[in-house]
C-alpha cells in the first residue's frame, strides 16, 4: 500500500519546492480550521488536508501562465497555483484585500494573476468551462494549457461528459485531473458508479487516461508533466485520476459517520507529506533540519497572512453593488 516515493533524480531545490508546497497547504488548512472554530471565518469550509500532493504535483508541472479551474474545495489548488497566502486568507475572512475582494469567499477562491479562474462550486461546473480556456489557448496558439480539477463525484455529472468529449474532439490543450477521494460528500463512489476507476471512463471519449497515486507528489507531477506536454503539442486532453483521500470531513461539521476509522487510519499512513519527507531524508535529498527550517518559514508566512487578513478592512458596503457589470446599468437601479 505505502510504496515509498521515488525521489531519484529529484534535485534538492525541486524537492524542497514541492515539500514546501505540501506544507503550505497543510498548515494553511489546519490553521483555517482553528480560525473557523474560533468564529473568525464566515460561511463554511471544504478542506483539502490529505490531498495536497495532487494540487502541488499538478501545479508544479504547469507553466505560470497556464490556468486552472477549481471546485468547492479550492484552497489547496489556489495556494499551489500561486494565489498569495495573504490574498487567500483575507478572502476567507471576507476582507477587502481578499483575492476576490471579499466577494468570492472560500468556495470561489481565484486570481487571474495566478492563472486561476474563481473556483466553481457547482460540482463539475469547471468541466464545461475549462474547455473554453483550452479553446482560447488553441485559437490563439499561446502554448498555454488549461487544467481542470474535479472530484470523482463530479464524473457522474453531465458536464464531465460534455466537457471531456468536446475537449477530445477539438484536441484542446487541457489536462483533466480527477481527485478520487472515494467520497462525494457522504456518498461512496461505488454506490454511484459501476466502474471503480474514473480513468476507465476516458475511453468513451478516445482520451488517454492514467491512474496515479495521489498521495505521491512526485508521481502526480510526472503524470501531469507528460499530459501537459501532450496537450501543448496539440495532441489533446489527458485524464489523470489521482487516488487520494480527504483527511477531514466533507465540510466543516461533518462527523464522517459514513466511513470507518480504520479506513481513515490506513490512508493517514500514506500521508503525502510524511511520506515525501521520509523519502527525501532517506534518499539524502534533504535533511531533517532543512525540512524543519522550511516548516518554520511556512509558519511565519502563515502568521503573516493571518495577521494581514485580520488587520485588513472589511469591504465598503457600497462595494456590494459594483462588479455585476463592467459599467453599472440602470434598470434594477439599486437602492
Amino acid at each position, binding site marked *: 500500500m505505502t510504496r515509498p516515493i521515488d525521489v531519484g533524480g529529484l534535485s534538492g531545490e525541486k524537492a524542497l519546492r514541492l515539500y514546501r508546497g505540501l506544507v503550505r497547504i497543510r498548515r494553511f488548512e489546519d490553521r483555517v480550521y482553528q480560525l473557523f472554530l474560533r468564529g473568525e471565518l464566515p460561511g463554511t469550509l471544504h478542506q483539502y488536508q490529505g490531498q495536497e500532493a495532487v494540487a502541488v504535483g499538478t501545479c508544479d508541472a504547469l507553466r505560470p501562465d497556464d490556468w486552472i479551474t477549481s471546485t468547492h474545495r479550492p484552497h489547496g489548488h489556489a495556494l499551489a497555483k500561486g494565489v498569495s497566502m495573504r490574498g487567500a486568507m483575507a478572502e476567507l475572512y471576507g476582507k477587502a484585500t481578499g483575492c476576490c475582494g471579499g466577494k468570492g469567499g*472560500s468556495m470561489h477562491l481565484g486570481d487571474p494573476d495566478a492563472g486561476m479562474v474563481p473556483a466553481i462550486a457547482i460540482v463539475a461546473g469547471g468541466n464545461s468551462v475549462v474547455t473554453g480556456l483550452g479553446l482560447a489557448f488553441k485559437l490563439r496558439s499561446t502554448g498555454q494549457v488549461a487544467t481542470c480539477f474535479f472530484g470523482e463525484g463530479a464524473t457522474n455529472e453531465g458536464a464531465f461528459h460534455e466537457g471531456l468529449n468536446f475537449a477530445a474532439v477539438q484536441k484542446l490543450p487541457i489536462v483533466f485531473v480527477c481527485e478520487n477521494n472515494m467520497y462525494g460528500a457522504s456518498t461512496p463512489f461505488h454506490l454511484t458508479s459501476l466502474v471503480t476507476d474514473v480513468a476507465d471512463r476516458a475511453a468513451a471519449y478516445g482520451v488517454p487516461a492514467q491512474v496515479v497515486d495521489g498521495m505521491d507528489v512526485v508521481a502526480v507531477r510526472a503524470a501531469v508533466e507528460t499530459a501537459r506536454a501532450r496537450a501543448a503539442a496539440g495532441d489533446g486532453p489527458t485524464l489523470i485520476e489521482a487516488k487520494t483521500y480527504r483527511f477531514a470531513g466533507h465540510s466543516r461539521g461533518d462527523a464522517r459517520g459514513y466511513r470507518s476509522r480504520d479506513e481513515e487510519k490506513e490512508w493517514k499512513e500514506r500521508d503525502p507529506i510524511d511520506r515525501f519527507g521520509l523519502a527525501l531524508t532517506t534518499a539524502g535529498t534533504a535533511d531533517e533540519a532543512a525540512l524543519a527550517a522550511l516548516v518554520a518559514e511556512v509558519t511565519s508566512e502563515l502568521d503573516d497572512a493571518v495577521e494581514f487578513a485580520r488587520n485588513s478592512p472589511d469591504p465598503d458596503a457600497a462595494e456590494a*453593488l459594483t462588479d455585476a457589470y463592467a459599467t453599472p446599468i440602470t434598470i434594477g437601479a439599486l437602492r
Partner: protein
Amino acid sequence: MTHPAGHAATLEPGGAPSGPERRLTIAEAIREAIAEEMERDDRVFLIGEDVGIPGGFGGAFGVYLGLPERFGRDRIIDTPISEKAIAGAAVGAALMGMRPIPDVQYADFLFECMDELVNQAAKMRYMSGGKLSVPLVMRCPVGTSNRGAQHGQCPESFFTHVPGLKVVCPSDAYHAKGILKSAVRDDDPVLVFEHKLLYGSKGREQAGGLDLTAHVPEEEYLFPIGQAVVKRSGTSVTVVATHLTLYRCLAAAEELSAEGIECEVIDPVSLLPMDTETIFASVDKTSRLLIAHEDTLTGGWGAELAARTAEERLFSLAAPIRRVAAHDVPLPVAPVLEQAVVPSTERIKSEIRSLCEL
C-alpha cells in the same frame, strides 16, 4: 376583510392555530410530513444526493434523518451527483403514477436540471392532451448564509414563470408541514422553496435570534396550495413577504407600530398560484402595498404581484407600489456585503415609512 376562514383569526406569530402546544422546527415538521405521506401512500419515495447514506447527513440539511431506518433505502434512494438524472427519474416515475420527492440539495443546483423541470415536468400533461400527469415534489433550500454566489440564491421566481408548475414558499413549521402534504397529494409538479436559515436545526442564533419553532398539532391536517396567511393585521400598509424577509417585515411592523404605522403583514405561502384575493382585500383596506423578498428585484415574483395589483387594484392605491428585494447583483460572501444586498429590517422599515408618508 376577506381571508381564508379559520386561519387568520386565531394566528399566533408562528402561524399555527391555537391548541395544546407541540412546537416543532421547520425541519422537524417537514420530516413529519414526509413520513406521514410515505406511511399513507406507498407510491411516495425520496430520491437525491446524500439523502440516506448510513452515518451521513440525512440530506444536506438533515431533514431526512431517521427516514431510511423507517422506510428502507428502497424508498430513500441515494443517487450519483446527477441532477438531470434525479429530476428525470422523478419526472418519469411520476408519469408512471409514483409520487417522487426529488432532492438536489440547494436550489442553486436546479439550474443543472432546468430542462427536466421546465421542458418535461411542466409540459408533459399538456403535451399528452391531459392524459398523463407529473405529481412530483421538489424541495429546494434557498437563502444566503455566507456561502457566496452559488449557494445562496432564491430562484423561486424563475419557476413562477413556468406554466405547469406550482411554486410554494412556506415560512413556518405549521404551514411547511401542511403545504408539503398538499404538495405530495397534488397531481401536478410542485416546487417547495424553504429558507435554510429557518429550518431551525442550527438553533435561533443563525436566524438572528428568531424563534424557529411553531405549534404543529398532533392530528393530521393539510394546508392548501394557493392560500395566503395574514400574519399580522393592520390598516396603514399591506406588506407581502416570504421566508426570512417575512420575519424581518414582522419585526419592522412591531417597531413601526410605535410610530403609529400599522402594517398588515401577509405571507403568500404560495407564489403560483397566488392568493391575490386575500392580498387585494388587504390593499383595498390599506391603500398601500409593499412587497419584500430575498430573491433579486428585477423579474422577481414581487414584479408579478405588483403588476397584477396595478391592473386590478390601481384605484385602491394611494401610493406607488414599493418593492424591497435583494439588489440586482450576484451574492457576495463577505458578511458586510451580503447584508448590504439582502433586505434588512432597517431597509424594510425605511421603505415602509417613506411609503406611508406618500
